[in-house]
């Protein structure tokens, strides 16, 4: 059962303020947002993987994953790539600006079911955002999970998000494998596409769950690569993106067959994806 956003009106955003903006890459900014009502902020609960709708009043709303973990509650963090009308408006906002938030919406990663397992994250570009919330949840509850391997790639070093955190992740015992598409001066990590690096790393599927998010073409090859490595469909989780408006299962556009990405997703196992009509 999804959370009820507002008791009476699920279309009504909660009012918040942008506390901090981080320029992650040339076209991605991270927003740290605090709800204006301290009681609402204190009572705000969500699970890793859930999303929120950010409002720029006068322009519109758009959906983003809450990429801070539920274990860190001083602000809600969203990373936004500049692609359309609303994201362009979000990029124009400044620290201290008001913003509307409808959250949490959608389902989440099955954290409890992942306890005791080894974890493989495979992310590309902005696709690291949904993985970050779960990764940091696991970092903060480190003893509950086994090996954590992250394969994260982008076109170039400057297209990697959260660079300022990589040392902290490694310090927390995360096996972080970074890759970019080609050689760059000063780049000392891996070079090559994510699926290639995945094949080279070849993390064992034994007692492991793989969680992947990135551009569709990367997902396609990563799924094939995981299958090659022996991962079963129910060992693979991914998050889907669709054009959304209402975010609450009513407006009718984000469906894949009878599945609504906004309320039934965004997190799906590969088993679930295979049962859907093929309309990705």
């Amino acid at each position, binding site marked *: *059962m*999804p959370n*009820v*956003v507002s008791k*009476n*009106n*699920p*279309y*009504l*955003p909660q*009012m918040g303020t942008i506390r901090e903006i981080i320029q992650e890459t040339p076209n991605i900014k991270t927003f740290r947002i605090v709800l204006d009502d301290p009681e609402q902020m204190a009572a705000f609960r969500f699970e890793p993987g859930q999303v929120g709708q950010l409002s*720029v*009043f*006068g*322009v*519109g*709303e758009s959906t983003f994953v809450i990429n801070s973990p539920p274990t860190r509650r001083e602000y809600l963090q969203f990373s936004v790539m500049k*692609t*359309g*009308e609303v*994201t362009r408006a979000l990029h124009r906002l*400044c*620290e*201290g*600006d*008001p913003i*509307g938030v409808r959250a949490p919406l959608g389902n989440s990663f099955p954290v409890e079911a992942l306890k005791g397992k080894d974890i493989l994250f495979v992310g590309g570009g902005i696709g690291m955002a949904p993985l970050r919330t779960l990764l940091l949840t696991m970092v903060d509850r480190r003893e509950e999970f086994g090996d954590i391997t992250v394969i994260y790639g982008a076109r170039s070093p400057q297209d990697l998000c959260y660079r300022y955190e990589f040392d902290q992740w490694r310090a927390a015992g995360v096996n972080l494998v970074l890759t970019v598409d080609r050689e760059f001066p000063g780049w000392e990590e891996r070079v090559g596409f994510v699926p290639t690096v995945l094949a080279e790393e070849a993390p064992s599927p034994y007692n492991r769950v793989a969680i992947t998010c990135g551009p*569709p073409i990367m997902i396609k090859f990563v799924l094939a690569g995981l299958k090659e490595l022996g991962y079963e469909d129910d060992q693979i989780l991914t998050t889907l*993106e*669709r*054009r959304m*408006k*209402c975010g*609450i*299962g*009513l*407006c*009718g*556009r*984000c*469906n*894949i*067959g*009878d599945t609504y990405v906004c*309320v039934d997703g965004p997190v799906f196992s590969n088993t679930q994806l295979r049962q859907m*009509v*093929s*309309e*990705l």
Partner: protein
Amino acid sequence: MEKAVFLPDTELHEALAALSADAQVWVPAGDASKPDLVRFQRYRPGLSVRLDARSLVSAKEVLFPRSEALLRFVKEKDLSVPAGHRLHVDDTRTVPPAVVFGCRPCDARGFLTFDRVFLQGPYRDPYYAERREKTTFVSLVCRDADGACFCSAVGSGPADPQGSDAQLIALPDGYVLRAITQRGAALVEKIGRGPTAEQIQAARDMLDQAGREMVGEGSLTAMDAAFRARFQDAAFWHGHIDKCLSCGLCTFVCPTCYCFTITDEARGLSGERIRSWDACMFPHFTLEASGHNPRPSKVERYRNRVGHKFSYFVSKYGQVACCGCGRCIRHCPVSVDIRAVVRDLPVQEEVHA
């Protein structure tokens, strides 16, 4: 008939005026300049009420306006805060009681599809819910189905009481109005006069006769599996849909199509967030900011329309999302016939060399 009154033709306007005293009354009415162009309009004296004619557009807009404000916002200048303005958002609204008088049973039944989604889904839509609670539906037992009608094929029929609070049964000189729900009973009390035994009998006969009548061939309610089996049959979908113009007419005249968009419409420092009708037949409906479109052509879009009504909705809610009113067929610029598409889903074609 437990609670029924007789409403003579000559007193129809008087009754509508009486109902208008404490509710918005919507009736099928002809345009002043085009009497055969019948739409649901707010009752006013002198309106050319046409209970005898099928309306072009359904009564959908009474509960689901073509465009409505979800919230209003104002940016109030204030240089003491970092943003330079304070934002005020408000979603207050007033919903008056309403009566839809003289719609057809299919129109009233159409809202059962809305109810499943807007009232019984994981989130309740407060705008729809409020109107729904305050609206009374009086449907006219239908005696003039045309070649596009197919209500019986979706489990309804010309005398279907589902979704109606009261029913009108046409007699030669007026109507017997019978209550179906409590809300209908409250309405019936306000108008008409005690019916004679003959009138009651005539109404009963008419109701029986209409209840037995079958409008549309066969049944289209159990096509879920057939749809899924056809999903990737490109030749099937092209065969039916090559002629489609990909406009939004079918969805806009439909009593059960509920898809919408939300947009901000602002001017200067204030504006509204509005919800307006949208159509799954439009390309931008699913177009993502990246340029990717999961339903890039009319074939995928029409397939989704058929799937939504006759497969996805069935597997989710156990009912089809179609009331068989036939408007999408009757008014389609190129006569795309959704009945034929759905009926053909399970048909094994001969293989031609």
